[in-house]
């Protein structure tokens, strides 16, 4: 049976048009940010806004030499340490959970799922009080700990799902041959889990890099992260639009790298394990 040919063409046009309009909606704000970062301060205030202008790198120079670069250092350090900690604690825990049956597994995994659902504001408020009494406010330690509250459950949840799917025959063989669980994890499981480990590492990095509320409440200057810097500049009255655009464009880099080089690996993680 053949469909009505004109109906099909119309359908295709609608689909194509919808996607094109959506992509413009997605890309335009980013493109405009990029253009904005290449303008001079004077040019950024002109009305109507110029689309063609002589690009300048003044904003990026200000970013590099204006005493703001430490926020990037903080963000990278916090994110990398979170990747390390989430994997070191998360991998063995996920392995143990995935090979357990019964109530322990069920209760622990329900608890971990519910942590992910907890309002961040409710988590950061008590952490703020603790950090204040420990004199850890405005240190990257405080932010690292706060981010781990999200990243560790995320890592365990994703790895648990992955380990559940792996065939257990090789593990069983290794166990019969007298290997212990640590050896099985290290020699058998981890080598075949590399894609998932990469995915978890990327997601944890991106989460830490993007996170704002914890970093904003726990830091003020020394340990400020990039998102906190953007928000604090956006809150001032004296707008330096090109500088803020330049910082925003730089903050976008991990997103671009991940989406174009590792898209395949992270889909499950991006949906928080809802898709499996």
């Amino acid at each position, binding site marked *: 049976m053949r469909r009505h040919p004109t109906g099909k063409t119309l359908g295709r046009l609608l689909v194509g048009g919808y996607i094109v309009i959506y992509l413009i909606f997605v890309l335009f704000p980013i493109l405009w940010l990029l253009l904005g970062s290449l303008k001079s301060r004077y040019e950024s205030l002109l009305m109507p806004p110029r689309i063609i202008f002589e690009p300048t790198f003044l904003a990026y120079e200000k970013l590099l030499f204006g005493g703001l670069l430490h926020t990037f250092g903080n963000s990278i350090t916090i994110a990398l340490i979170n990747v390390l900690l989430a994997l070191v604690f998360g991998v063995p825990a996920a392995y143990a959970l995935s090979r357990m049956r019964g109530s322990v597994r069920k209760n622990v995994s329900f608890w971990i799922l519910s942590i992910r659902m907890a309002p961040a504001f409710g988590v950061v408020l008590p952490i703020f*009080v603790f950090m204040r009494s420990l004199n850890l406010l405005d240190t990257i330690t405080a932010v690292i700990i706060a981010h781990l509250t999200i990243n560790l459950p995320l890592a365990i949840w994703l790895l648990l799902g992955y380990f559940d799917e792996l065939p257990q025959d090789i593990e069983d063989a290794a166990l019969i041959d007298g290997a212990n669980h640590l050896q099985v994890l290290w020699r058998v499981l981890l080598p075949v889990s590399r894609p998932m480990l990469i995915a978890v590492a990327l997601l944890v990095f991106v989460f830490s890099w993007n996170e704002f509320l914890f970093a904003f409440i726990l830091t003020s200057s020394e340990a400020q992260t990039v998102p906190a810097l953007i928000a604090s500049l956006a809150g001032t009255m004296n707008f330096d639009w090109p500088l803020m655009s330049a910082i925003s464009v730089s903050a976008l880099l991990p997103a671009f790298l991940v989406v174009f080089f590792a898209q395949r690996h992270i889909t499950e993680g991006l949906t928080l394990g809802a898709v499996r």
Partner: protein
Amino acid sequence: MAYHPSKRHPIRRLARFPIGFLLPAVLVLAAIVLFPTLYLLWLSVRHWIVFQPQQYFTGLGNFIALFRSSAFWESLRVTGSYLLLTSLLSFAFGLGLAISLSKAIFARGVVRALIILPLLVPPVVAGFAWKFLLNREIGLVGGYLFPALGITVSLLAHPTLALVSIVIADIWSKTSFMFLILLAALQSIPVELYEAARIDGAGARQEFLYITLPLLVPAIIIGLIFRAIDAINTFDLIFVMTQGGPGTATQTLSIFGWKTAFTYFDLGRGAAIAVVMMVLAVITTLFLTKRLQR
């Protein structure tokens, strides 16, 4: 910790699981999540304003004060409208994208990557990018396009339009989430169902209504609940764009809680707001896990 050997693999009875595998993570989570949560509950029944010397037990005082304040109900209403608008619209757009992308189209990989991109963009940057576009003085849309069309109102300073603006930015940021969930669900529908329907003479509309949609329902529910919880918690995007303003027009529960705890320094009241948010999230989570277990 008891280790129950599974029936499928009798061999594993030999190997007891070392508790050392699970314990470190559980201890870390207990220290950084469980303990703070309990402390939050404790805070919520305390009268404690930073920089004021007296601190005392007030029972449900914080909650009663909260439920009596119009600001609380106002922010609950704003949270509700924001939640409904953003989850339903991101669902509608996400479904459209998922259906389009489940068909063979030109450069599907690149298009998919571009659609996912906003989900990885820091929400602070998303908020700033939209603020930059919508700004009344220098924004391309708010300062040039809209005035050229005769709309001279400042978008982010108008109560209703400010809410619409943050919803648009949120849709920009989070539609990809719905898209990914729905695309995965669409791709898991067996092709045979459509073939059988076609043999029976079903048209495209019937296929959608009687095969696609019913099979998507679980994914739609999961996606909507995740989005709803996410909307309850959204802080960054709103903070950058409006800080809850103008007035309290975009003040959601998380902005209200932040203001109470960190600009009025009323930690007890702030904790009470967090507890209310937590209760909302727990109700949603229970609902979700019930659905998942079905």
